[in-house]
């Protein structure tokens, strides 16, 4: 990426452009040393040494290398080598939260999974939560405290910081603690102690993905500033005005779970929610909507007003003034909202309190409060105050502040006024950063007091009122870091503080009252569960007192539809950019754009029509808002509203580490303050296409449907309810002379003998209705199975190694040869997400073509892959109809070439994350999904050890465990009581055969992908049901 305004330099010589530098710059390669120069060795020496070396190597090869086995001196009680331990903990990154269970092996965390005991995240995870375990082993972490960029001892740092604090306090100077949202009540108590010691201190919270507008609106409407819990599972009609609530808005994991519940259909629950989305970019939430309408970011307020007026007319309330827009489906949405009042919900993504007040008014009329919106259970994920932060920046620039402690935050990068903050840090008497990584802010502060990574720390959290959780260290601190809370306590005068004791004492004071057990038992139980819930739900009802008229006029005054409009958003991979240096996230294809390792600007197909692209390459474009501009490549995005562009946040890191540095441009500076809060949209943006070509690495380019009805099957809710979709379901027939009508079911003719599955028959069901495309499963699979990361260039060469991919299909109702229709559909297509992995076919085409029997079938229904037997003919991949086999073109481990993109296999620190039960594959072999056979084997062994059968739910694949909505169900199809058997209504294929054999799914929604080739997969998909009147897009 080249930013035309920036100058890149490697050292002072380059910046100063000294003659010496210029001389070397002209010679690409340093000249080879002459024999005299190079310490006396000549060609003959080289030959001699090589000869000796060869002889030594061949001699040494006769003896096997000596391997050491080093036991503990004092083995910890509950730790057994080769047996995994699990600890309940909490993932927290800024204001993002998930209750988790950490899997450790020999004291190293290697996998993170959801904690089902949590009432907030309920066992759900996200791609970022799953990936966070690799951030623990990030090579760019701070390894020790620093003073003025030099390594220092903690005692020296403490002494100097305390001296400076006292100096400031003595002069009456101002001190600020700047942080992201702090969910931890104990941390807040520590900050209070610090403030008590230095009374001029103020605590400023901000969030990269701010929701301050909503907080403010609720304060105006109900008297208390808060963000309520949204329970989408109770909603029949969901209207979202540009809120990406499945990805980055509110309690997104919880939203995904409750939304999934409302989308679930079965024979016994034949109803589902209807979801309307009004947005500019194609968001993950929008992709899941039944009706999606395109609006411009400046129209969000106007749409809200119009919806308010439509409903107010029905409710008999006064309407407010607003411009009339012609927005598709808006009237229909209003009708249904009103019809379903009490089980309807409207959400808006706008960070403008005026828009949120209007939306509150709508929800008030619909009776959503207390049913779908729970204001008595506020969530604490976004406590950032944009106005306070802006005031802080102003004060900082004006020299009113003497000392700042940046508490685990990085505002220089992720705050729109980061550049001003960066400038002002230099003039401070005291500047401290406590982040576990230096990053853009840390490199500017004079003191770095690194905190532990969250997997190394004790802490407590209150993600939601009444729901508490703990985090406990799953590994001893790898580096010489110290809990940031302990740093604050030390600086406020405590000697050798122990934050663990602080948390434990606080919990005794806060929660122990009324418990029947002794405190240690209570504490152990909380720690074991990871969570603790109180019944502190507070007042139930709220009364709306917002001023909608004032809000409407504020909207009219603040937004003008003009020119090209910009949306700044968080995509489904790097999010707000705080974990951008995590290669698992960089190589994760974005659910919508499928771009990896690249930044981009999304442009609608119509707007892109004028741009001349060369081959598969694209052009770089410059986006200018006010006096700030960035240059990023153009990505044509179906579904993007015409006249708008979208830029994801999270790129353009400069100090994040080798993985993220230099990818894309930082979009935060383009964010402006509107009506007292950050506005992630802009009007009248200058959008210029440059002449420079660029290629974006994308794993799946946009394709239209084109008659692949066998891959994705869908129906409408009406057809599902009356059962008529069954007769339209794709039932392939093959031609044969045997039958009278020369047609037959594909399964009657087969080249394969059927298998007997006497023991287990592992199978999977994937519900296309509840899959939201969030891609947590993809990351979970990567971490569990040591899947190699290959980097941008290799992805462009189509050599990504992911075992599980999510195919994103756009669709329209236009027929295959109706080109014009298809083109129109690309403007606003329907979207289907389909997780695609090895289908473990019973009649596997790959098995029959392997010349060395490296891929074979097991008696449990698995298609097995023996890496060491594989000779790399790649016939199997060639013969796989699902294209799920991956070939190791390179040795991705211990290979300098992949050091920067695949640190998990190339650096000592990164290697700690590898799963020791799964082979790291070498060059030249084929690999693919194994149905997590290591987990199957472990589950079986545990059952055998206890002399019992395997219980259902005991063996779960990594992808199924990661799925928040439960769209992926894995289990034993031989067990009629298992969840997967019941869901699919499994029946043996040939009843007359005595032994247990291939299965058929009798659930009318179940189908196999590419049924006509009769490979009989052990993965069944459940037909997607859209809650639409007609099948058209």
């Amino acid at each position, binding site marked *: 990426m080249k930013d035309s305004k920036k100058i890149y330099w490697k050292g002072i010589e380059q910046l100063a452009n000294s003659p010496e530098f210029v001389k070397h710059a002209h010679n690409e390669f340093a000249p080879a040393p002459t024999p005299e120069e190079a310490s006396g060795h000549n060609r003959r020496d080289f030959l001699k040494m090589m000869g000796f070396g060869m002889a030594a190597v061949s001699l040494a090869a006769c003896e*096997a290398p*000596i*391997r*050491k*086995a*080093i*036991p*503990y*001196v*004092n*083995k910890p009680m509950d730790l*057994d*080598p*080769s*047996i995994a331990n699990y600890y309940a903990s909490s993932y927290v990154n800024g204001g993002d939260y998930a209750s988790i269970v950490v899997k450790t092996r020999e004291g190293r965390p290697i996998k993170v999974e959801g904690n089902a005991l949590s009432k907030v995240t309920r066992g759900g995870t996200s791609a970022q939560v799953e990936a966070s375990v690799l951030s623990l082993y990030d090579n760019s972490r701070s390894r020790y405290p620093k003073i003025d960029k030099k390594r220092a001892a903690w005692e020296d740092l403490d002494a100097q910081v305390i001296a400076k604090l006292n100096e400031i306090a003595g002069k009456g100077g101002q001190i600020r603690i700047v942080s992201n949202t702090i969910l931890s009540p104990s941390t807040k108590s520590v900050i209070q102690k610090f403030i008590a010691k230095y009374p001029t201190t103020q605590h400023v919270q901000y969030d990269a993905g701010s929701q301050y507008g909503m907080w403010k609106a609720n304060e105006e409407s109900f008297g208390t500033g808060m963000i309520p819990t949204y329970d989408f599972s109770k909603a029949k009609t969901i209207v979202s005005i540009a809120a990406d609530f499945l990805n980055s808005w509110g309690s997104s994991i919880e939203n995904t779970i409750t939304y999934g519940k409302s989308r679930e259909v079965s024979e016994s629950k034949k109803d589902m929610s209807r979801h309307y989305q009004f947005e500019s970019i194609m968001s993950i939430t929008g992709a899941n909507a039944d009706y999606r309408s395109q609006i411009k970011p400046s129209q969000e307020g106007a749409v809200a007003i119009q919806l308010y007026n439509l409903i107010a007319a029905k409710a008999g309330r006064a309407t407010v003034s607003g411009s009339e827009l012609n927005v598709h489906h808006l009237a229909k949405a209003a009708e249904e909202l009103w019809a379903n009042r009490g089980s309807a919900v409207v959400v808006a993504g706008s960070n403008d309190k005026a828009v949120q007040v209007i939306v509150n008014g709508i929800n008030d009329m619909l009776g959503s409060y207390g049913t779908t919106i729970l204001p008595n259970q506020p969530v604490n994920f976004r406590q950032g105050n944009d106005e306070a932060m802006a005031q802080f920046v102003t004060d900082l620039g004006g020299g009113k502040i003497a000392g700042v402690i940046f508490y685990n935050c990085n505002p220089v990068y992720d705050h729109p006024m980061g550049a001003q903050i960066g400038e002002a840090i230099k003039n401070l008497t005291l500047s401290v950063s406590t982040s576990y990584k230096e990053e853009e802010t840390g490199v500017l502060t004079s003191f770095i007091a690194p905190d532990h990574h969250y997997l190394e720390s004790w802490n407590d959290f209150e993600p939601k009122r009444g729901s508490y959780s703990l985090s406990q260290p799953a590994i001893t601190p790898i580096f010489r870091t110290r809990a940031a809370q302990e740093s604050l306590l030390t600086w406020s005068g405590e000697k050798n503080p122990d934050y663990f004791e602080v948390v434990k004492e606080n919990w005794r004071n806060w929660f122990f009252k009324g418990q029947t057990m002794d405190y240690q038992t209570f504490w152990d139980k909380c720690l074991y569960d990871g969570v603790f819930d109180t019944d502190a739900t507070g007042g139930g009802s709220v009364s709306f007192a917002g001023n909608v008229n004032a809000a409407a006029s504020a909207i009219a005054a603040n937004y003008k539809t003009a020119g090209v409009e910009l949306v700044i958003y968080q995509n489904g991979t790097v999010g707000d950019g705080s974990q951008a240096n995590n290669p698992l996230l960089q190589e994760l294809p974005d659910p919508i754009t499928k771009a990896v390792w690249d930044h981009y600007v999304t442009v609608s197909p119509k707007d892109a029509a004028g741009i001349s692209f060369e081959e598969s390459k694209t052009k770089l474009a410059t986006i200018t808002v006010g006096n700030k501009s960035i240059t990023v490549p153009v990505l044509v995005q179906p579904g993007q509203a015409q006249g708008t562009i979208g830029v994801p946040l999270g790129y353009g890191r400069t100090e994040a580490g080798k993985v993220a540095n230099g990818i894309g441009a930082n979009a935060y500076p383009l964010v402006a303050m509107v009506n007292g809060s950050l506005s992630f949209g802009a009007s009248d943006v200058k959008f210029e296409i440059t002449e420079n070509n660029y290629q974006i690495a994308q794993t799946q380019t946009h394709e239209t449907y084109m008659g692949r009805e066998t891959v994705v099957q869908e129906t409408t809710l009406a057809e599902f309810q009356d059962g008529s979709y069954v007769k339209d379901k794709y039932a392939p027939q093959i031609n044969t002379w045997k039958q009278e009508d020369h047609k037959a079911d594909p399964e009657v003719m087969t080249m394969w003998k059927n298998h007997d599955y*006497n*023991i287990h028959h592992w199978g999977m069901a994937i519900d296309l209705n509840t899959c939201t495309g969030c891609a947590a499963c993809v990351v979970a699979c990567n971490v569990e199975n040591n899947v190699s990361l290959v980097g941008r260039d290799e992805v462009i060469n189509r050599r990504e190694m992911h075992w599980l991919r999510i195919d994103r299909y756009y669709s329209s109702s236009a027929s295959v040869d109706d080109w014009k229709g298809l083109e129109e559909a690309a403007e606003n297509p329907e979207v289907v997400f389909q997780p695609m992995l090895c289908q473990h076919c019973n009649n596997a085409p790959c098995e029959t073509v392997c010349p060395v029997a490296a891929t*074979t079938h*097991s*008696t*449990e229904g*698995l298609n*097995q*892959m*023996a*890496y*060491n*037997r594989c000779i790399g003919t790649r016939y199997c991949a060639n013969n796989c109809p699902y294209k799920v086999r991956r070939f190791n073109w390179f040795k991705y481990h211990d290979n300098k070439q992949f050091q920067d993109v695949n640190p998990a296999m190339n650096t000592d620190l990164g290697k700690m994350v590898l799963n020791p*039960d*799964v*082979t790291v594959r070498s060059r030249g072999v084929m690999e693919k999904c*194994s149905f997590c*056979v*290591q987990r199957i*084997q472990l589950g*079986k*062994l545990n*059952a*055998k*050890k206890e*002399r*019992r*059968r*395997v219980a259902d739910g005991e063996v779960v694949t990594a992808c199924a465990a990661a799925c928040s909505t439960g769209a992926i169900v894995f289990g034993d199809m031989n067990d009629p009581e298992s969840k997967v058997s019941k869901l699919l209504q499994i029946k043996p294929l040939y009843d007359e055969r*005595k*032994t*247990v054999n291939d299965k058929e799914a009798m659930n009318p929604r179940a189908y196999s992908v590419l049924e006509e080739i009769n490979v009989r997969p052990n993965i069944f998909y459940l037909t997607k049901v859209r809650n639409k009147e007609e099948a058209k897009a």
Partner: protein
Amino acid sequence: MSSNSRFVPLVLETDTSFNMIKNYLHSACKSFLFLSFLVLISFSSYSQEISTEPAAITAGGQIFNANCKACHRVQQKLVGPALAGVEQRAPSIDWIKRFIKNSSAVIASGDEYAVNLYNEYNKTQMTAFTSLKDEDIMNVLAYIKSEAEKPATPPPGQQTGTGGTATNAGGGSEYLNVILIGMVIILILLVIILGFIISSLKRFLDQRPLSEEEKEVVHSPITFSSITSSRGFLFIVVFIVGALGFKTVINGLYSVGIQKGYAPKQPIAFSHKVHAGQYEIDCKYCHIGVMKGKSATIPSVNICMNCHNQIKTGTNTGEGEIGKIVRAFNENKPIEWVRIHNLPDLAYFNHAQHVNVGGVECQTCHGPIEEMDVVRQHSLLTMGWCIDCHRKTDVNSKGNAYYDKMVEIHKEREGKNPMKVEDIGGLECSKCHY
């Protein structure tokens, strides 16, 4: 598992596989017995009477071997006193229970008998066995009583059960020897007969009128050089040498990477012969992971120190080697043992599956470990070796509900043929390679 047969060398050089099956059967039966005893134990009620039930005695034996045997014998004074007659000697059964659970507390309480005992044994403190329940201790006492009443154990060589196995196996090779001797006798007879034929032919020709030349041919002596220069002889020699050479090369190629017999020098001259052989310490006392997980685990130093807190002088090496353990413990420095059994990274092997679930004896793969001063790799550890065993070994399915359905289906299909590991997918790639 009876302690008597456990360390008897079952594996003879001549017929290993036969014995291997024997061994498996043994262990399978033994685990079954063990299990049924466990069930019995859970039902047996608590009493102060020392039981004479065989179930209690066997269960007590298990506990004794796992916990007590490191320091105590029934008939013999070791680190601690010989335990025969302890139930009469000690103040009360209750006292024994208290002492076993926490000896130092009893001593500290000033109990006279305990203090005398403590002083008598050089102030050696007995480990506190808090995990043992009252009925466990009663079972141990039952075991001690029954052992004390037994006549002195005969030396292992005279064991009837395993001795029988040895004779059987020997019988097989003797049969082979008879055939060989018979063949040699037949060959000698053939040579004698051929000699007779030659001499009678000579005599017959001598009676005929023959020319000088012909006489020379008949009477030409069979010399060494005439044999060695014959074409047939040369062909045979070349063929044999060629074949032997070829076989050596092939064998050599097959043995690449095989470390059978590998017995590296270890940082501490630890002897399994002393620990497992002489003192009959249960393998699982030190290798604690063997029933739980993939690794049997090399014992951590604190396990060594359970005994070597007291035992400072070794049988073979005096104080030097044990001193190394104490030093490692005091300096908190791990001991860097040299790994002997190196499976390739691509193969997954789990001890719990084989020892806990399968009931395989340690010796089946590790050989007569109780006779080794320096441990060597006993088995080939090749895939062929693994598969061979999976083909021949019956599944240890008794009392394990996991296998119930498989056994049922197998019976339906195969009738009385035993269910081998192979029959339930034991030869499939993904069982070991993933």
